């Protein structure tokens, strides 16, 4: 790749000081996102995926949080910017969609005002221009009767519509990078399908790169191009979406994929018992020697418990943090 990536996160460490020790929520995470690319970060509760997204936008309160490492956006380290410089980037070049469309909109401002706010702030539009642009944005995200909706308050909209408004807000300033943190988790299936469809369409028209944070492997398969699997604050595997689902290399990823029933399994006769990942995610407050997944890994050896595996290439464009190759894992 000749061009520098749009976002380059290097050795990100986000730790929180708590009364009973330091919580290493994200511990040495590196990844990049190219312009126009959709990268998904998947993992279960507490793996650090949301903390990663909040860290990129520096939305982590410090203290008790502490962000270290480098977050290069278009070559500039976001962690070195002043608060004022950071404010000029948030909602402008980098914007975010949150999970809860109910709580992330301001209940006492009309939808138009909220979309207009970013436009007035970042693009210097006046009141009328901002409202006009807000109507355009609502039209873009497929809200019927945008001229009327723009004057309404969040409580007058359904959950799906609120999420559309969130997307309109996030896209208002033509961001280069959009961070979507569980954008469809709170929505019903048919509404989720509408929103995913909308995100795919908008990606083609707007061309922003997307970092999609989710726990839903189905959503990942539908929208992502590249996937990062996180476990206990670290990246354990990264690959193109097709490669990851076709041949996962890390035992955790293999376990995750085996734990989800596949829709249509009763038709293909592919009805196996779901695979379980025994045990629990380790506490992030004690430093883990060795592989973070060793305590739950069915193939863990003494080596795994003693030495943390580095991310190594298991196939072209496919890295995993495991001491063993696929053949060795199968044999074990």
């Amino acid at each position, binding site marked *: 790749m000749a061009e520098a990536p749009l976002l380059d996160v290097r050795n990100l460490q986000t730790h929180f000081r708590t009364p009973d020790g330091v919580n290493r929520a994200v511990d040495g995470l590196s990844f990049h996102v190219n312009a126009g690319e959709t990268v998904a970060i998947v993992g279960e509760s507490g793996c650090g995926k949301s903390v990663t997204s909040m860290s990129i936008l520096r939305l982590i309160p410090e203290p008790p949080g502490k962000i270290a490492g480098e977050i290069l956006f278009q070559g500039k380290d976001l962690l070195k910017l002043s608060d004022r410089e950071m404010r000029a980037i948030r909602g402008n070049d980098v914007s975010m969609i949150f999970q809860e469309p109910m709580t992330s909109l301001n209940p006492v401002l009309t939808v138009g005002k909220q979309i207009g706010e970013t436009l007035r702030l970042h693009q210097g539009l006046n009141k009328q221009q901002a409202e006009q642009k807000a109507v355009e944005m609502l039209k873009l995200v497929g809200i019927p009767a945008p001229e009327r909706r723009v004057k309404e308050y969040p409580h007058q909209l359904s959950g799906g*519509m609120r999420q559309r408004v969130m997307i309109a807000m996030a896209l208002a300033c033509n961001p280069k990078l959009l961070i979507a943190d569980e954008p469809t988790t709170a929505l019903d299936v048919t509404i989720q399908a509408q929103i995913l469809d909308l995100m795919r369409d908008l990606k083609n028209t707007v061309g922003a790169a997307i970092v999609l944070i989710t726990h839903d*492997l189905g959503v990942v398969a539908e929208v992502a191009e590249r996937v990062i699997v996180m476990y206990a604050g670290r990246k354990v595997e990264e690959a193109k979406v097709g490669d990851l689902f076709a041949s996962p290399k890390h035992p955790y990823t293999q376990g995750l994929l085996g734990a989800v029933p596949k*829709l249509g399994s009763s038709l293909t006769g592919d009805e196996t018992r779901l695979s*379980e990942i025994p045990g629990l995610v380790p506490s992030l407050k004690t430093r883990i020697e060795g592989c973070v997944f060793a305590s739950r890994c069915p193939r863990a050896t003494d080596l795994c418990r003693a030495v943390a595996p580095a991310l190594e290439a298991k196939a072209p464009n496919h890295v995993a943090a495991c001491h063993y190759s696929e053949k060795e894992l199968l044999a074990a």
Partner: protein
Amino acid sequence: MSATLQMNAPLLRVDDLKKHFPLRGGLLGGVTGHVYAVDGISFDIAKGETLSLVGESGCGKSTVGKAVLRLFDITAGQVVLDGQRIDTMSQSALRKIRRRVQVVFQDPFSSLNPRMRVKDILAEPIRNFGLAKDNADLDRRLAELMDTVRLPRDAIGRWPHEFSGGQRQRIGIARALAAEPDLIICDEAVSALDVSVKAQIVNLLQDLQAKLGLALLFISHDLAIVEHMTHRVAVMYLGKIVEVAPRRSLFAAPKHPYTEALLSAVPVPQPGAARKRIILKGDVPSPINPPSGCRFHTRCPYAFDRCKLDEPLLKPTSTGHLAACHLHDLPAVQNPLSRDVSPLH
């Protein structure tokens, strides 16, 4: 799963169940309208069978569960457990029946009393229903329950906050089992759990059903889990059942446009899977003022004039489903659902 189900007298029969919640408002606090949460549904469950109720938020599936548990009085209809009507039963008679129908709730954090030890949580139903002969029998039962849900026996003296979400859900299941029920209502019992933990609980429920011959009313919005667990599926939309069918045939060839759209909308963990996707327009209408005729006609891709006027009844189709759709009255060439095509392929 047991392939041979006793299909004679059902364990539970629900007949034309209605539950309307009054809306109060205005100056005098009078009734200004109703939420038609459940509006005339019928189904039955055989001994040892799993019936899943699926649908999106607000379709009334949880209300059905609560009505079967008789957590409130119903507006109309009948709920019959093993030949006895429980919707009209007196509270004292109901106490004996309650043992036979137990529930596992969605949220393992709020459904356990934080001030009771696991031991007391599990002993309560055993004592209430007088199931233990003496203290030694009680202890034996408690130890067995812990084994059954695969929790360590020595954890029984601990408090709920000492357990993870998945472990708490196991305690919730053990509490339901303590009463030795015939039917367990699982109201989104695995929805709040992480993927790997969800698999553990799903496997546990399947094992328990095979071992104890329990019937399950599995209320869920997760179609992949439903397909994995269930014998039969009932699909609900706005307070009505729109389709009932055995699992395989429902997923192979749905006979209601809503079921078809619902199946096609689920994202599958299979990149590049080329599927025909039906994206429904708009939102679910309000159950306070449901649409006329077929309740789905405002979002249905196949709706025609009759759908706005006439409410379709749940009728058998040629493939043995029950479906409430006027399309099946049309000649087969005009019925897009007569093709036996799964929206999953």
